[in-house]
C-alpha cells in the first residue's frame, strides 16, 4: 500500500479568491479523503439583528455575499413581508426579478471565468470577465452600485427604472447574448475544455439527492429542486422551466450554468415586455411579529431566510442558510478518489461562496 500523505489546500490558494481549508489525504496522486475546515470568514452577522432595527437589517443581510447581494436583500425582505403580510406591488416584483436574474448572469459569468482560469485557459477567463462588466454597468446605471446595491426594501423598492431604460437594457442584453454565444461555444465544444471536465467528479442522481445538494450542482445530476418553480416574484407569469442535465460531472455543471445564462437573458426580456405599471413600494406599518421562512433560488442554489419578531423594532432572530453550505458534503464526496490535479476544478464546480457559508 502506498504511503498516505496530507496536503493542505488553502486558506490562501491561487485558484480561489476566498479562504477555505481542505486537508487532502492522498495516496500517490489520488485523493483518498478530504477534510474541510471553515471559519476563516465567519463574522457573526446574524447577531447584528440585536443592534440594527429591522428596516436597516436589509443592508447587513445584503452583505452576506457581494456576488448574490441582490438576492440576499430580496430574501430578507421576503421573509419580513411574509411575517407582516405585506402585498408587494407587481411592478416591484418584476423589477426585483430582473435584478435578481441580472445577478445570476453576472455570478455565472464570474464562475465560468474562474473555471477557465482554474484549467489554465487565461484568455477565456479574460473574455468572460469582459462580458460580465456589461451586467455591472447595467447595475450601476439602475441602482448606483456595482456589487452592493441597497435597492431592495421591505415592501418594495427604493428606486424605479424608467421604461426607456428598460428597453435599453433589453437591447444591451441581446448584444450580450450574441457575444456570449461565441464563448459558450468554447465552453461546450472545445476539445481541451471537455477533456478537463467530462467524466470528472461524477455525482449520481441518488447521491445528489441523498447529500441534499442544491442549485446547479443538483441540476447537473438531474435533480430538479429549483425554488423559482414555486412562482415567487414574477417567475410564475414568465413561464419558467429549469435547466437540467443528467451526467452529474463537472461538464454537466458547467453546461447547466451556461444554459442558465441564456435562460436568464430570456427571462429578463420577457419580464421587460410584460412590465406592469404602478407603484414600486407598499406602505409598511407596525413591526413584524411571529415567525416566517422565505426561500430564494440564488445563483448557487436554494437559500433559506428565517425571521422571528416580537412586535418590536428589533427582531429576535434571523437565520440564513446558504447554498454552498448544502453543497460542501457533495464536494467532499466527489473529491474522494479524484486526482490531486483535479482538486481545484472540483472545488470550483460547486461554485463555493465561503462568505455565504460562514456569514
Amino acid at each position, binding site marked *: 500500500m502506498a504511503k498516505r500523505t496530507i496536503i493542505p489546500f488553502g*486558506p*490562501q*490558494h*491561487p*485558484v480561489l*479568491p*476566498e*479562504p477555505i481549508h481542505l486537508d487532502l489525504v492522498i495516496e500517490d496522486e489520488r485523493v483518498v479523503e478530504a477534510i474541510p475546515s471553515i*471559519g*476563516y*470568514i*465567519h*463574522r*457573526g*452577522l446574524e*447577531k*447584528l439583528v440585536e*443592534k440594527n432595527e429591522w428596516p436597516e437589517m436589509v*443592508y*447587513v443581510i445584503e*452583505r*452576506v*455575499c*457581494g*456576488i448574490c*447581494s441582490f438576492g440576499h436583500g430580496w430574501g430578507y425582505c421576503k421573509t419580513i413581508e411574509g411575517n407582516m403580510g405585506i402585498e408587494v406591488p407587481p411592478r416591484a416584483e418584476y423589477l426585483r426579478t430582473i435584478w435578481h436574474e441580472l445577478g445570476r448572469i453576472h455570478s455565472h459569468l*464570474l464562475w465560468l*471565468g474562474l473555471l477557465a482560469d482554474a484549467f489554465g485557459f487565461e484568455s477565456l*477567463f*479574460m*473574455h468572460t*470577465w*469582459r462580458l460580465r*462588466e456589461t451586467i*455591472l454597468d447595467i447595475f450601476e446605471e439602475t441602482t448606483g*452600485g*456595482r*456589487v*452592493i446595491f441597497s435597492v431592495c426594501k421591505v415592501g418594495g423598492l427604493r428606486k424605479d427604472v424608467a421604461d426607456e431604460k428598460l428597453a435599453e437594457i433589453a437591447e444591451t442584453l441581446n448584444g450580450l447574448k450574441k457575444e456570449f454565444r461565441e464563448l459558450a461555444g468554447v465552453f461546450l465544444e472545445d476539445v481541451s475544455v471537455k477533456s478537463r471536465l467530462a467524466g470528472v467528479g461524477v455525482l449520481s442522481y441518488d447521491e445528489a439527492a441523498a447529500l441534499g445538494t442544491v442549485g446547479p450542482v443538483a441540476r447537473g445530476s438531474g435533480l430538479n429542486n429549483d425554488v423559482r418553480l414555486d412562482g415567487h416574484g414574477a417567475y410564475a407569469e414568465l413561464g419558467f422551466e429549469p435547466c437540467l442535465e443528467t451526467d452529474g460531472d463537472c461538464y454537466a455543471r458547467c453546461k447547466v450554468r451556461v444554459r442558465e445564462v441564456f435562460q436568464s437573458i430570456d427571462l429578463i426580456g420577457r419580464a421587460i415586455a410584460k412590465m406592469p405599471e404602478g407603484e414600486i413600494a407598499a406602505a409598511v406599518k407596525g413591526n413584524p411579529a411571529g415567525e416566517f421562512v422565505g426561500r430564494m433560488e440564488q445563483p448557487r442554489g436554494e437559500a433559506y431566510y428565517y425571521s422571528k419578531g416580537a412586535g418590536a423594532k428589533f427582531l429576535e432572530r434571523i437565520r440564513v442558510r446558504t447554498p454552498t453550505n448544502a453543497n460542501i458534503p457533495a464536494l467532499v464526496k466527489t473529491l474522494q478518489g479524484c486526482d490531486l490535479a483535479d482538486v481545484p476544478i472540483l472545488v470550483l464546480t460547486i461554485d463555493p*461562496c465561503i*462568505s455565504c457559508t460562514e456569514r
Partner: protein
Amino acid sequence: MASYITKSPWIIHYDGSSCNGCDIEVLACLTPMYDVERFGIINTGNPKHADIFLVTGSVNEQNIPVVKQIYDQMPNPKVVVAIGICATSGGIFRECYNIVGGVDQVVPVDVFVPGCAARPEAIIDGVVKGLGVLAEKQAALAKGVRDAEVPGAYKYEEAAEETAEAAAEEIAEEAPEAAAEKAAEERKEEEAV
C-alpha cells in the same frame, strides 16, 4: 534599479473576512475593463513573489496567523494596502462578535482604500499610492539600512519575543509588590481561621 519594481509590481491578495464584494473588484481590476495587467501587474499566489499585499475584509482570530504568515514571507521592500471599509475599520461588521477590527491591528498598513465595495478605480489609485511608498522603502534599503529599520518592515516573531520579554520584565518588576500583597492576604486568612 528603482524602476522595475514600481513599474510592474506583483500583488498578492488575501480575503480576510470580506463579503466578496471587494475581492471580485480586485479581480475586476486585472480583467479587460480596467486591465492593470497591461502594465505587468500580476496577481500572484506566492507571497515570496509579491511586492504589494492587498487585504480585503477585516481580521478575526482564525485568520490573523494567515495574514501574518503571508506578510512575513514577503521580501522587503513591501507595501500593504487595505481594500474596503472592512479592512480599514471593520465597517458594517465592526460590532460583530467575531471581528477584531481593521487589518492595521495585525500588520502595518501603508494605504487605506475605503468604500463598500471599494471601486476598481479607487483600488488602482490605492495601489499607485502604494508604489510611492514602495519606492521610498526601496531607496532606504539601497542606502544600506538594515531590513528591520525600513519603515513598516517588522518581523512578527521578533516582535512577539520582544513583547514576551517586556511582559516578563513587567511581571518581574511587579512581582515583589504582588508577592507582598499575596502574603498579607494569606496572613489575614490565617488570622481569621
